[in-house]
């Protein structure tokens, strides 16, 4: 029977791999996800064939868990996806922690019949608990920040790195002693200490990271949740846990790398610098001049005359829930024989691909969504760029102001378009507290107001004329 189960696990692994492969294109992605789900279903069914299972606990757990999961999946707003993914990362981490703990407790209780715990098992048990605990509490902090329950600002205090370093050192010390004698009562005490330290470390390592750096943090925690499952797989030597966990781990690492590259910062800089906690004082000069505000009517005439319009959405679009009206405006423009596309910066929003999902929700076809590297080379021929709730990702200082904190970050070069319309509530600087020279450009018109209301006004203008 065990042979049959393990062979079925291979099939599950193949389905996971093909499922991820089919995520390579929007056309096949949905089928891919379903294939992956089929693989999971197969794994669950064959696991039930294991001898000597206590079904009442399994059924209870599955029923409660899936009910919550289904409810959350049906109810969640697309603008709240970052929060949901953060929460799910955390649950994954906690599940792995609990599994490792359950196994360890069971081992201690059965000790009379078993040989001493091998050091390898002790080490992977420790890793499972450490990664799982950090993933859980870190994700809860990320969730709190994303949903606005705690401050989005980076929380920094003097000696923070020292504190974090000391916590990590304490964890490693406890782990070393634990791995030397895992089977004793003292070993169990250390185990609990490690659990607590891991939970604490997740909090202290996530609070110094500010809101706009969340795409990196979520990706990283996503990776951790996979690695936690992987470590749990080592504990119970289950190959499918290792394969699936490693796939997720690799996925998170790649996303983290892409996000860091899109901000031109190293991972260490994102994790430790507390970026955004202090408003940048150095970049006062240069980004001054006269702002040219525009009325709804002005903007309407500019758009009406344009041959090509590129929308550049940012987190402000999600906050204002403006995705549907933007699509409506886009369709009106298309009817007016204007070429419309949407240029999306990799770190726009609060998680990778956030803007794409919002626009897809509003029925924008995915072939109108273009990436930064595709739009920049033909920016000179674009008539109008409409920047909605984006700031740092269109700041030309990243290209030409060496003193700017975001210097070197790749941006969507909207300032090269013939006309730029910037939708903004007020002249407050963006997340990083950096002045944006784009707003003072000769070809820039500022269209002040709430993004949703402003676009609605434009839509009304188009319909009336």
């Amino acid at each position, binding site marked *: 029977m065990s042979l049959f189960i393990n062979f079925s696990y291979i099939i599950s692994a193949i389905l996971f791999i093909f499922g991820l492969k089919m995520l390579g294109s*929007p*056309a096949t992605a949905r089928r891919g*996800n379903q294939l992956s789900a089929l693989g*999971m279903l197969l794994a669950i069914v064959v696991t039930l064939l294991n001898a000597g299972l206590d079904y009442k606990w399994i059924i209870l*757990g599955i029923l409660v868990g899936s009910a919550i999961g289904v409810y959350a999946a049906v109810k969640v707003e697309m603008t709240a996806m970052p929060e949901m993914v953060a929460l*799910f990362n955390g649950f994954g981490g906690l599940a792995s922690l609990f599994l490792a703990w359950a196994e360890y407790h069971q081992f201690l209780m059965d000790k009379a019949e078993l040989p001493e715990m091998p050091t390898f098992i002790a080490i992977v048990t420790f890793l499972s608990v450490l990664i799982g605990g950090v993933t859980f509490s870190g994700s809860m902090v990320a969730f709190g920040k994303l949903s606005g329950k705690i401050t989005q600002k980076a929380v920094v205090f003097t000696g923070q790195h020292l504190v974090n370093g000391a916590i990590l050192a304490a964890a490693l010390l406890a782990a070393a002693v634990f791995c030397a004698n895992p089977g004793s009562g003292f070993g169990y005490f250390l185990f609990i200490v490690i659990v607590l330290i891991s939970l604490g470390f997740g909090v202290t390592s996530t609070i110094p990271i500010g809101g706009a750096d969340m795409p990196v943090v979520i990706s990283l925690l996503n990776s951790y949740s996979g690695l936690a499952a992987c470590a749990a797989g080592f504990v119970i*030597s289950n190959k499918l*846990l290792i394969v699936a966990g490693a796939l997720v781990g690799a996925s998170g690492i790649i996303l983290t790398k892409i996000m860091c590259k899109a901000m031109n910062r190293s991972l260490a800089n994102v994790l430790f610098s507390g970026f955004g906690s202090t408003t940048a004082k150095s970049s006062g000069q240069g980004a001054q001049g006269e702002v040219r505000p525009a009325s709804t009517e002005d903007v309407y005439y500019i758009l009406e005359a344009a041959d090509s319009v590129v929308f550049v959405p940012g987190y402000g679009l999600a906050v204002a829930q403006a995705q549907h009206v933007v699509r409506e405006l886009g369709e009106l423009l298309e009817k007016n024989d204007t070429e419309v596309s949407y240029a999306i910066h990799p770190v726009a929003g609060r998680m990778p691909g956030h803007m794409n999902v919002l626009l897809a929700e509003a029925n924008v076809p*995915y072939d109108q969504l273009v990436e930064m590297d595709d739009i920049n080379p033909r920016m000179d021929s674009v008539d109008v760029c409409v920047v909605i709730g984006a700031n740092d990702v269109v700041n030309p200082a990243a290209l030409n102001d060496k003193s700017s904190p975001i210097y070197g970050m790749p941006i969507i070069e909207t300032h090269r378009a013939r006309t730029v319309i910037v939708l903004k509530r007020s002249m407050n600087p963006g997340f990083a507290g950096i002045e944006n020279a784009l707003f003072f450009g000769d070809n820039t018109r500022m269209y002040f107001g709430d993004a949703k209301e402003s676009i609605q006004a434009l839509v009304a203008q188009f319909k009336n004329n």
Partner: protein
Amino acid sequence: MEAVYLSFIFVLTIFLGFELISKVPSTLHTPLMSGSNAISGITLIGAMASLQTEIHGLSALLGTLAVALAAINVAGGYLVTDRMLEMFKKKETSSEGGDK
């Protein structure tokens, strides 16, 4: 020896994962993340297998909690990913007449 063999699987899968994921376009990064949330719910089968009949009280409690948490990930993750991917449509289905 088991340790070496498991580590082998781990390392090779990481490389496979790098190859697979680097081909996912940035448009699909959010579904990729929620989909991998679901896959990391694989802890579910480990937790299920740990719930043996002769299990001790605390282990049963922890195991059941692990099953429930992982099941949230599996059910919620796959479902919300499907919901999202359903919304990704090509041009002809959504805009009427205004092509090019």
